[in-house]
């Protein structure tokens, strides 16, 4: 990738805040809250803000954030990057990389309220980008691609996504003081140091309308904060919020590492995101069975299943043993098509779900759901390892 040659020089300079926090795993307790409208209808951010605020106790002011899907309909085909900068050097270095690879359709400072709301925010910008056409033609990929065929379209899409993943990882680890916090399409992540309700107000979350919102309040066990280290964690259209500590971190990291994902942040959320990306986007494993890999049933449950099912689960555990997530966690992973919530298999962290019409809610605590939806149609406590999936009807979004 000769695109990055000039970055090699900055690589050695890379340490400072980003580096020093990225090398340490910091366990944290948390609040998570997510809402999706399965019909694809967008709604204002005040609802998610209201809900997460109810769980103030679960955060300690050291991190809060939101992911929102469907917020940039005017740029829905463009890559939307949210980027944090420590200073102007990192900004110009990053923009050089962007200009080299993309056509910048539009960019601006991310609008925020009065900075007195929060402490030491970095400079934050958003960019709407179109990839230059030549990226597939470079080097070994020179194979003739028929842009009309459906299969080749998938190939191009996957190549484009792989390219974005690669680029985001390289910018984040090579350019000192620059950090791409979200890199999807028609979605964005807003996060920082503070209670989620303060962060929400700072970013004027209620100015946005999305069909899917997730949010996070953080209670880390360290005292110093870095804005980029807040959650949700994002890559491509993925965003992940997570409460808990993945005690299988090392095994999971090894597993994704084997497929070329470099865990640079050393956070649980990062490795969870890569697991989803690998299994869902790359290996195309059906969403409805992912939980059988990520939070596989216990052997003693598998033993009691009918033979055909038993063999399949055994195969999962043999092959995907490195993808099994262990330790206490509740997570909400989202992309533009769905919201997916999962608890660890022996349910060591709280998670509640509810439905009301087309709305699906997932929360660390029931109180947050009741605040925004006092009488849901159903409300339940998903069992350990039992996923809650809200699929967005994309047809409705397209038709709009």
């Amino acid at each position, binding site marked *: 990738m000769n695109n990055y040659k000039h970055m090699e020089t900055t690589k050695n300079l890379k340490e400072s805040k980003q580096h020093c926090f990225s090398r*340490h*795993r*910091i*366990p*944290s*307790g948390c609040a998570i809250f997510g809402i999706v409208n399965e019909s694809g209808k967008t709604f204002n951010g005040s609802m998610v803000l209201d809900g997460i605020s109810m769980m103030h106790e679960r955060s300690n002011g050291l991190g809060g954030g939101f992911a929102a899907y469907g917020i940039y309909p005017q740029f829905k085909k463009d890559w939307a990057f949210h980027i944090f900068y420590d200073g102007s050097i990192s900004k110009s270095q990053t923009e050089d990389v962007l200009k080299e690879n993309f056509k910048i359709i539009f960019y601006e400072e991310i609008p925020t309220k009065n900075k007195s709301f929060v402490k030491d925010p970095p400079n934050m910008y958003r960019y709407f980008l179109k990839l230059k056409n030549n990226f597939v033609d470079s080097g070994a990929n020179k194979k003739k691609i028929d842009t009309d065929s459906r299969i080749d379209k998938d190939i191009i899409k996957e190549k484009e996504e792989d390219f974005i993943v690669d680029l985001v990882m390289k910018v984040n680890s090579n350019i000192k003081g620059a950090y791409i916090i979200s890199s999807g399409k028609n979605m964005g992540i807003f996060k920082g140091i503070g209670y989620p309700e303060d962060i929400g107000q700072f970013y004027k979350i209620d100015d946005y309308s999305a069909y899917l919102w997730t949010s996070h309040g953080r209670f880390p*066990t360290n005292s110093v904060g870095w804005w980029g280290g807040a959650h949700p964690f994002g890559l491509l259209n993925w965003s992940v919020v997570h409460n*808990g*500590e993945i*005690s*299988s*971190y*090392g*095994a*999971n990291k*090894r*597993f994704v*590492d*084997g497929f070329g994902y470099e865990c640079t942040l*050393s956070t649980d959320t990062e490795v969870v995101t890569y697991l989803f990306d690998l299994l869902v986007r790359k*290996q195309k*494993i*059906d969403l*409805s*069975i992912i939980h059988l890999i990520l939070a*596989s049933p*216990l*052997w*003693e449950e598998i033993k009691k299943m009918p033979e055909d099912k038993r*063999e*399949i689960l055994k*195969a*999962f*555990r*043999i*092959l*995907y*043993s*490195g993808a*099994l*997530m*262990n*330790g*206490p966690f509740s997570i909400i992973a989202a992309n533009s098509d769905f919201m997916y919530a999962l608890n660890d*298999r*022996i349910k*060591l962290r709280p998670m509640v779900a509810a439905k009301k019409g087309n709305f699906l809610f997932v929360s660390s605590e029931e109180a947050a759901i009741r605040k925004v939806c006092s009488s849901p149609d159903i409300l339940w406590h998903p069992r350990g390892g039992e996923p809650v999936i809200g699929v967005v009807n994309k047809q409705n979004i397209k038709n709009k």
Partner: protein
Amino acid sequence: MALKLAQSEFEIERDSQKCISCQVCVRQCSNDVHEYDSDEDIIYSDNDKCVGCHRCENLCPTGAIKIKEKEAEFKKNYNWTSSHLRNIYKQADSGGIILTGMGCDKPYPVYWDHILFNAAQVTNPSIDPLREPMEIKTFIGRKPDKLNMEISKDKNGNTKIKLKTKIPPQLELSTPIMFSAMSYGSISFNACMSLAAAASKFGTFYNTGEGGLHEDLYGFVNNTIVQVASGRFGVDKNYLNKAAAVEIKIGQGAKPGIGGHLPGEKVTRDVSRTRMIPKGTDALSPAPHHDIYSIEDLSQLIYALKEATDYKKPVGVKISAVHNVAPIASGIVRAGADFITIDGFRGGTGAAPLVIRDNVGIPIELALASVDRRLREEGIRHKVSIIVAGSIRSSSDVIKAIALGADAAYIGTAALVAMGCHLCQKCYTGKCNWGIATQDPYLTKRLNPEIGTRRLLNLLHSWSLEIKEMLGGAGINAIESLRGSREHLRGIDLSEKELAILGIKHAGEAW
């Protein structure tokens, strides 16, 4: 030869007040240490013949005997130690290579003892294995990169999954511990029987070593790993198919680079039948396999064995931990092996030249760490299972090995100790007083296979329990979530270089 320069290593203390001249010690000692003088009704002991196996001491009904290490009888010298002097005297006497048994006993660093395991506190609840399921089931075999499957919905809306990828054959272990290769010939039939029965009852595997497979053990086919070594003793199609897996033995930790020698005296009628060699002849394993002179030859043997077993059994390769072990292991994965066994330099043996045992090879901890890293860097670690061997002394060694990247561990010496071995290191004499490393019927009957089985089962059970306790303490309820998770290990009293090779942080460093 009247000149006797070497002096005895042990001193036998007999309390004449307690001794009742019952002659148990006389009958128990195959080394003829004790002699009864009927005229005087007194038992004399010859210190020179004692090997320090403690059989007489253990069986003396009145506790009259004490075997003590003899104080150094040579003038103290840190360079010319008494073992050096003794060896030179012996060699000057005999002109031969000094033989020994069991693993290296020299004070090289034992890295297991410089590694500490983790536990969960507050942010991550520990799990109580007595209340919650704790999964230590382990699979050994080749793994494909991904599973292809077909997903459909039946009429009730239930998801139906159909696998399209065929999973290569796997060994299913109820605990990540197996019994290491020990041949019939080097150990007694009763010892083999105990290992086979215990493996079968516990749901794990034992390894025949290179001594063939005795007919009476055919019943344990589902828990047997047969070895194909350079001597090819007892190897035919039937042998290969009386096992769940096949292991090609290239090397052994105690004697990397050299072959084996079972003296003719140990080749009894039964051993000769099992090994398919004439009775009373020396069984010599050549140093190399005469059909393997490079990696592609190994690949051919792997596939020949897979052909012979219809691709239904995992075929692995055992190598000893030598300096270049990581690239060698990488080659073995590419040659098609389903598992790799790495035997560390402290691994046991029935007979090996002392100079080789004590000076050749590297510690298993370092070998494992570098093989695991190398295979990961090359993106092929997930394809094979790694089994470690070579002095796994406790459940904590097992769990540390798994966190360093092993899939399972082989235990050899620990299993023998469970059956009564006292590590006197004289296996090569065939005079094992504990009835383990001998073919003398007078001695072999001392090991009752039922008792041997029970003791081995107890060992597997207690180690498995301890592994579950440690896993639960770290907040993990499945062993696969620990595999290769070096974050759970910390080094203590190790140099930067050692930590770097092991891939672990020093104690006191947080995540």
